[in-house]
């Protein structure tokens, strides 16, 4: 009796462990096998580890680059959701990962610690490039899309008051309410810059980021600090006021890659990543963000659909 029981317990434990160990190693390579039969430039190249940061847009970017490379036969592992820029950068410089997608403005302000804001996208890119080069990395080509703060309003509100750019808010003086995270009030890429550069003077109301669009819907605030790639912007309900004087800076994305990796992986590696980046328009990333953040689809599935539609799988 006890012997039987012992056997059953041992078998059950063994089964659980075996199921876990046996299949854990081949979990993330499902899309890779397909195109390797004929020509796979990456098949004989050394394996690479890529990281990404800790929010949904980065998960999508990580999956896009990973799957595009896997389609070319490269052996690439994705270490997802690592953390904020500083943490991921540490993982880069300590050699735990060899590449990750980063925002150009973040490289300049957070990683390099430059306090003077650059005044064009290309200047931002160049400063970012200079910084990563110094540490043995290369910044590949940037995406067309940029993910900066932006002033969002209800479309109906913008139409009614003929609002196009941020300076159009001047007409309201102090009577318009602007919502944003508490730190928005004290940052140059926030209220300070808006007052200084556009001469607008809205009433500020601190709100939680998760409640931004609800605050707009309920007219608690008429203008809110949003992000240009927010999925809610695909709904056709909201408008972004343009920022011609670039208070909110420049945040295009580009993969940072270790120089030695670019060399050892061959030219197709770099070309593939650049092809993916070139596809990422504001509209494309918003729709992918919507699929991930609103529909809760998995980032890797969304990335796969996008790459398939653009013949990159």
């Amino acid at each position, binding site marked *: 009796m006890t012997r039987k029981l012992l056997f059953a317990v041992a078998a*059950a434990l063994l089964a659980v462990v075996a199921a876990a160990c046996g299949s854990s190693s081949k979990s993330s390579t499902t899309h890779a096998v397909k195109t390797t039969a004929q020509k796979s430039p990456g098949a004989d190249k050394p394996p690479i580890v890529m990281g990404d940061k800790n929010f949904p847009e980065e998960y999508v970017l990580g999956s896009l680059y990973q799957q595009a490379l896997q389609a070319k036969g490269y052996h690439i592992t994705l270490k997802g959701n690592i953390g904020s820029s500083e943490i991921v950068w540490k993982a880069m410089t300590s050699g735990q990962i060899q590449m990750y997608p980063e925002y150009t403005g973040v490289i300049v302000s957070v990683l390099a610690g430059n306090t003077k804001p650059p005044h064009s996208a290309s200047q931002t890119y160049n400063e970012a490039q200079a910084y990563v080069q110094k540490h043995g990395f290369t910044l590949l080509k940037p995406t067309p899309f940029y993910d900066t703060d932006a002033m969002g309003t209800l479309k109906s509100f913008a139409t009614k008051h003929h609002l196009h750019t941020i300076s159009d808010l001047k007409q309201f003086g102090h009577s318009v309410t602007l919502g944003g995270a508490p730190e928005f009030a004290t940052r140059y890429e926030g209220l300070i810059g808006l007052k200084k550069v556009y001469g607008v003077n809205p009433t500020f109301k601190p709100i939680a980021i998760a409640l931004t669009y609800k605050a707009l819907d309920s007219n608690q605030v008429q203008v809110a600090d949003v992000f240009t790639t927010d999925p809610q912007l695909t709904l056709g309900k909201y408008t972004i006021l343009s920022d011609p004087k670039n208070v909110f800076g420049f945040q295009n994305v580009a993969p940072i890659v270790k120089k030695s990796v670019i060399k050892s992986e061959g030219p197709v590696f770099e070309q593939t990543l650049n092809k993916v980046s070139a596809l990422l328009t504001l509209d494309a990333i918003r729709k992918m963000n919507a699929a991930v953040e609103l529909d809760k689809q998995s980032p890797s599935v969304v990335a796969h659909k996008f790459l398939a539609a653009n013949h990159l799988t």
Partner: protein
Amino acid sequence: MIVFANGPVIPNFGGSGSTYACERANRLFCPNWVSQNWNSVLWPALRQHVVLTVIAVVIGFAISTALALLAYRRGWIERPVVIVTSILYTIPSLALFELLVGVPGLGLSRTTAEVALVSYTLLIMFRNTLTGLREVPAEVRDAATGMGMGSMRTLLRVDLPLAMPAIIAGVRIATVTVISLATVAALIDDEGLGAPILQAISNEVFKTELIVAGGMAIALALLADGLLVLLQRALTPWARVRV
């Protein structure tokens, strides 16, 4: 190349009409999401969780058993071991994981997670094993010696079998503790059932994922606990009465 000049083809991600209505409304339970993400998210997370746990318990068991055997022979070792492992056990998991991240050579990796998880098992298994060994009646051990058994054979044939209930009780508590703490490990090593939980929080508090992943973690802990109880009974049929 020319294709790209015209901009990307943006496929329909399936968000038409009611396909993702439940997800968009963030209801408590969207079965559709669970079936779509079982193979890609939930099952791999469960598997990783089991792997994390098994590695930690096996390594922890080896270390603490070695320490307990040492302390059994040389009594003075017990105190320092208990002090160090108690402090390790007392440090909240969130803090210990982050402190280890700062240690050069560890960083954000499974190794870091395992070091922390192992450190939580030491006090439990060390103390249980040592208590179990010490509770072996002296007469029994004397009898073994009287029968001409050497000290190694006495240990293997008498002490350890008699201490088995306490040893397994330690393994059981350690296993369940590790399953619990491994969810927090996702903060520094993006795997296990904590990963979907953290992802759901960052994705506008997606309820279905929270409930399913949290429920799976609880179920795994209860299942492991139950299995180890059965193992305990099977290995030590004579010890049913012992408290």
